[in-house]
């Protein structure tokens, strides 16, 4: 019996069933907390015509950006798509459809997708291009627009630790969109830095219960940093300059 053991042994197995023209929701913010190896596997498979839902689209040679050169992405739903020359070229050339979505609305759309809420009202975007074609309704004297949920054929997620049942714990701001993406995939695939025994994680401290997770794999991560900002180790040293 397999029971609740979600662990798979290869990235090929992890992304099995992903086919052309599917919708994939990805966790991550910039290059922080992105499912690096699951993205690489999609590149390797060469799946085309994908609709990607992710806050950002990586950079030219890392993150979701690696799916651009072979034109694997048909459409992207994102809040911020700077930092990527090939992205800009494809968008300007009309080769790539871009649906800019406010960051909070994007997060809420994923949550709603996972939570069986088909649509919700928000004040975000009222009177802006984001509101075009959407219903506007007044509640208690203020206008709101109706936004619909997002569900993915796949969700790809990066967590820190997991047990074999797929209970997940995230680390610092690498959490970001990952717990939301995890709820919104018909098939949710998670890669983690460490898999621990069932029972090791404190039930009160699990960020994503295993019920949302279909497949789990342990990976190694580059964790590239986009803006390396530091302060001097010894402030006295600076003052002394």
């Amino acid at each position, binding site marked *: 019996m397999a029971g609740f053991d979600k662990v798979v042994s290869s990235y090929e197995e992890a992304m099995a069933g992903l086919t052309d023209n599917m919708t994939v929701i990805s966790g991550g*913010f*910039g*290059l*922080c*907390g992105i499912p690096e190896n699951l993205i690489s596997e999609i590149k390797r498979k060469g799946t085309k015509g994908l609709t990607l839902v992710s*806050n950002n689209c990586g950079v030219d040679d890392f993150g979701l950006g690696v799916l651009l050169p072979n034109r694997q992405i048909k459409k992207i739903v*994102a*809040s*911020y*798509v*700077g930092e990527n020359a090939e992205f*800009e070229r494809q*968008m300007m050339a009309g080769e790539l459809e*871009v649906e*800019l979505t*406010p*960051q*909070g*609305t*994007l*997060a*809420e759309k*994923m*949550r709603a997708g996972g939570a069986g809420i088909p649509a919700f009202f*928000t*004040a*975000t*975007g*009222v*009177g*802006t*291009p*984001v509101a075009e074609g959407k219903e506007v309704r007044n509640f208690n004297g203020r206008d709101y627009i109706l936004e619909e949920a997002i569900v993915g054929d796949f969700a790809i997620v990066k967590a*820190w630790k997991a047990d074999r049942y797929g209970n997940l714990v*995230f*680390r*610092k*701001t*690498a*959490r*970001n*969109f*990952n*717990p*939301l993406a995890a709820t919104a995939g018909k098939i949710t695939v998670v890669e983690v830095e460490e898999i621990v025994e069932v029972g090791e994680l404190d039930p009160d401290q699990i*960020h994503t219960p295993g019920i949302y997770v279909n497949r789990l794999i342990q990976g190694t991560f580059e*964790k*590239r*940093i*986009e*803006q*390396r*900002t*530091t*302060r*001097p*180790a010894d402030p006295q040293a600076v003052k002394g300059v």
Partner: protein
Amino acid sequence: MALSREQIAQRVANELKDGYYVNLGIGIPTLVANFIPDDIEVMLQSENGLLGMGQFPTEEEIDADLINAGKQTVTMAAGASVFDSAESFAMIRGGHVDLTVLGAFEVDANGNIASYMIPGKLIKGMGGAMDLVAGADNIIVTMTHASKHGVSKLLKNCTLPLTGKGCIKKVLTDLAFIEIKDGKFHLLERAPGVSVEEIIKLTEGELVVTGDIPEMKL
């Protein structure tokens, strides 16, 4: 003389109050953190999921899993908490953040703001800016008063796609601190050495000047 970026940040910092939860946008707003008065405490919210953002890390402290909304490596202050993006924007959209400071390309006399897109030229996306302007009661926009070519950014009507409609009440430029109400700009303070006439000249929207306009205290 027009305020420097640091002076704009410094003037904004005077608006901070003890116990404020504050979201600082990218650019000049980020600099505000350097001018928090010693006698008050504020907590910085970063919309990627951190409340209680600390200073930049030392080389040894750098952690790829700990960044701010500008994707810069940061640290956590004592009492910080981490959460997912839905929770972060629940805070923002739900009006729990006391003050939001962000930049803009244009604002207008109706409180509209354009800050995320120049059609055909700059299409990077709004990030969290639309949520921030829709969620906060208390917003300060920081920007230069006019372009290098002397074209006003305080307009009758924004010309660029809007980030938010009717949501801006306070603007701090390199020349002036301005309140927006009743469809007009109201001049509150002027930068040290900057004349009221100069500000009027560089403000396209209607500017109300009532009585003597004091110089800013920095």
